[in-house]
């Protein structure tokens, strides 16, 4: 299983990851139209700067995910390969997963009364946020590769 890893030491806070995610998650698939869509699409990765610290929150696909335990609808479950997958159909927007995710990686979509989170863009060869990250602060690899290469 491949995951998206974030290394703050390489990040310069350019927000390209958020922008790429918004473009991908928009209905129009257009960077420029996305901000005018209603509801405005939300990025599944969120960047934060406080003082001189940078951080991007994104679903870590935890081995023991708090969100899966907290989900009262069964919408959050593990896939066969171990990712945490979210079934939009079942979701009722109770925000239980939002309440427990220690990474703040579950995104409430208030208008749709659903949540969403990073789905690793399985339809892409490489997730757009990783492509957009020119400084390689985000990488898309298996946990083993990540451990080996740091």
């Amino acid at each position: 299983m491949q995951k998206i890893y974030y290394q703050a030491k390489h990040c310069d806070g350019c927000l390209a990851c958020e922008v790429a995610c918004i473009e991908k998650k928009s209905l129009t698939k257009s960077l420029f139209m996305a901000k005018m869509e209603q509801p405005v699409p939300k990025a599944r990765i969120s960047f934060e700067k406080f003082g001189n610290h940078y951080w991007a929150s994104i679903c870590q696909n935890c081995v023991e995910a708090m969100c899966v335990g907290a989900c009262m609808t069964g919408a959050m479950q593990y896939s066969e390969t171990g990712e945490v997958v979210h079934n939009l159909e079942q979701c009722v927007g109770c925000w239980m997963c939002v309440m427990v995710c220690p990474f703040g990686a579950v995104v409430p979509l208030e208008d749709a009364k659903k949540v969403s989170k990073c789905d690793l863009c399985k339809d892409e060869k490489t997730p757009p946020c990783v492509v957009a990250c020119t400084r390689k602060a985000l990488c898309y690899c298996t946990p083993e590769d990540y451990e080996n290469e740091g």
Partner: protein
Amino acid sequence: MGFYVRPKSLGLNSKPLEPDDNLRTSICCLCNGGCGLKVSLDHEGKVQAVFGDLDNPYNKGKICAKPMEIAQTLYGPYRVEYPMKKVDGKFERITWDEALKLIAQKYNHYIQESGTGSIVGITSKIGGSYSKLAHVIFSKLTGMVNYGTGPICMESEFNVRKEIFGNGSSSGPLSDVVKSKILLIVGNNCAQTKAGQFHWILEAKRQGTKIVVIDTRFTETAQVADRFIQIRPGTDGALGMALLKFIIENDLYDQSFVTEHTNGFEQLAQAVESFSLERAADITGVPSNVIQELARDLASRQPGMLFEGRGIVCVNNAGASIRAFEDLMSILGNVGKEGAGIISHINNYGSAKDLIPKKDVVKSDRKRSAEALYQAMEEGEIKMLFIAGNPCVNWPDSRRMTKAIQGLDFVVSHTLFLDDSAMQADIVLPATHWLEEAGVQASVHRVLQWKDQAAATYAEARSGGDLFRQLAKHMGLETSYFPDSPQKAWELERTHNKSIEGITVERMRKTPGGVHFPCSEDGQEAERLYESGVFPTTSGKVELARANDIAIEYIEVFDSPGNQGVSREKYPYLLSTNKVASHYHTICQYSNWAREMEKQPYVEIHPQTAAELGVIDGEQVRLETVTGSLVLSARITLSVPRGYFSTQPYFGLHSPYGQTPANSLFPVAVDPVGGNFANKNIMCTAKAERGQGQ
């Protein structure tokens, strides 16, 4: 968007200018922008620098890179100095007399052997008003059929507009934008393509005109817009129709104008019936609330202007898009008013009538569409070709065009440079540059401006005006019909064309910025058309619907000519060519400055598409369409949408770039309604080209 800043290095190797106290005034003839120029000459009378003319009321001293590049291109190694004849594949110098004699002899031979239809001209760069008129007279005397800039540039725009308003040219001057409340720019990167005149749009924006840009790419023009609407390639028609539907349904149109001055409103309403906001949003990728906002803006901000560009004209479904947007302006009543109308660089002021007596007019025995020209050349139906332009670079399927020209019996090229097309010629004739020729230039402001000859004639170069007169003489035709100077040519044209009757050379010289047309004998110039409310259509009204009663027929881009039947699995992306200011014409490839600014031709790719292909910025990419493939270096940018490739046209093999023309990738496909060749939105595929290096 850091990738989008274009390099701005200029003149690294320029030598100091010689003092020139007597700057010549001229008008730029490159893009129909009509920018006023000041030309500095050296002691030999050669152009050493070109500046903007601060006294010209239209460009106010602003120009783009193209005219500046002239100082370099005109005297470079590619310029043709004297007539040449190809002997055993090599060009040998001959005299003008020898050349003309040979051409005349061949010309007469083919007329007799194979008929007038066996000789055609591809004459997109024939020269100024003097050369154009001589060419017209020559064609009338010989029955030569010519293909101008139309099919590769504006045929669809011209034809559709002519159907609607009865006149294909621009209905209002660009300078009117400062008086309009909203300017709708569709598929037009005028910041690059009308750079010298772009300050009008900026000025309008400062004065409160809302600038709305609809484009597939986030262009330089889009960057200054109040509202940029990114639209999926080739879907402009659907957007225009949804706007029409919304405006009609909500009674936001100018009802009195529609009743009094238009025909076919019912058919139009019916044709757009199925284009709901939601459907249009699905097709175009523009959120329905944005479409609605635009419709309301257009209705509430009046007067408004429309400026269409090649983005909706040089495409394979151009007819529907152009008609949708121009019908839209019509029903809003944005016609014939100050600050309203359609801006275009098409400045057709009509043609001179009865230049030669009927008895001497020869009609061509065959007529072919531009599309059919290829086959006619390939099948040997055409024997002789007269080139004034560069069809081997700027016509679609350039490889096929080149091969077709190679197969002809006799080819003449009247040209500035020994370019891709001249290389295929049997006779190459040196042409004058427009700075070396006096004449009239039309502009995007609907004015005619006079320019005197600025630079000294280069080497043995001759203008088209002289060439055709002399050729006629050698062919034994009546030469008295031909004017022998640009001034006389204009006088002749003026007196045979009602719409420019009042525009004398004298008057143009006296009036800063030139004279608006039409302008009748009694001297009243018309800044904009249709102010009287009468339209030159048969009915005298705006024709909102086409003759066949179907107002607009939307064709999906993948079902349009050139893409029809092409496998989407094999060719999943779309390819377009888009011009940049410094590489606007094929002539620009001979300038070092242009080269400094744009380096190599490149292909713009969205980062996600690049990732799919495994390409990083600067790496080589092979683009392939049904007609062939070529390699370009990648420029990764968010300014283009995903799955869309944009490159610059007009680079050739016989230039400092040695580049296969981008037009080689475009099949010979024409817009079924307007007749324009498509040089955008053609299905393509791409892959990384490894091991080639930079």
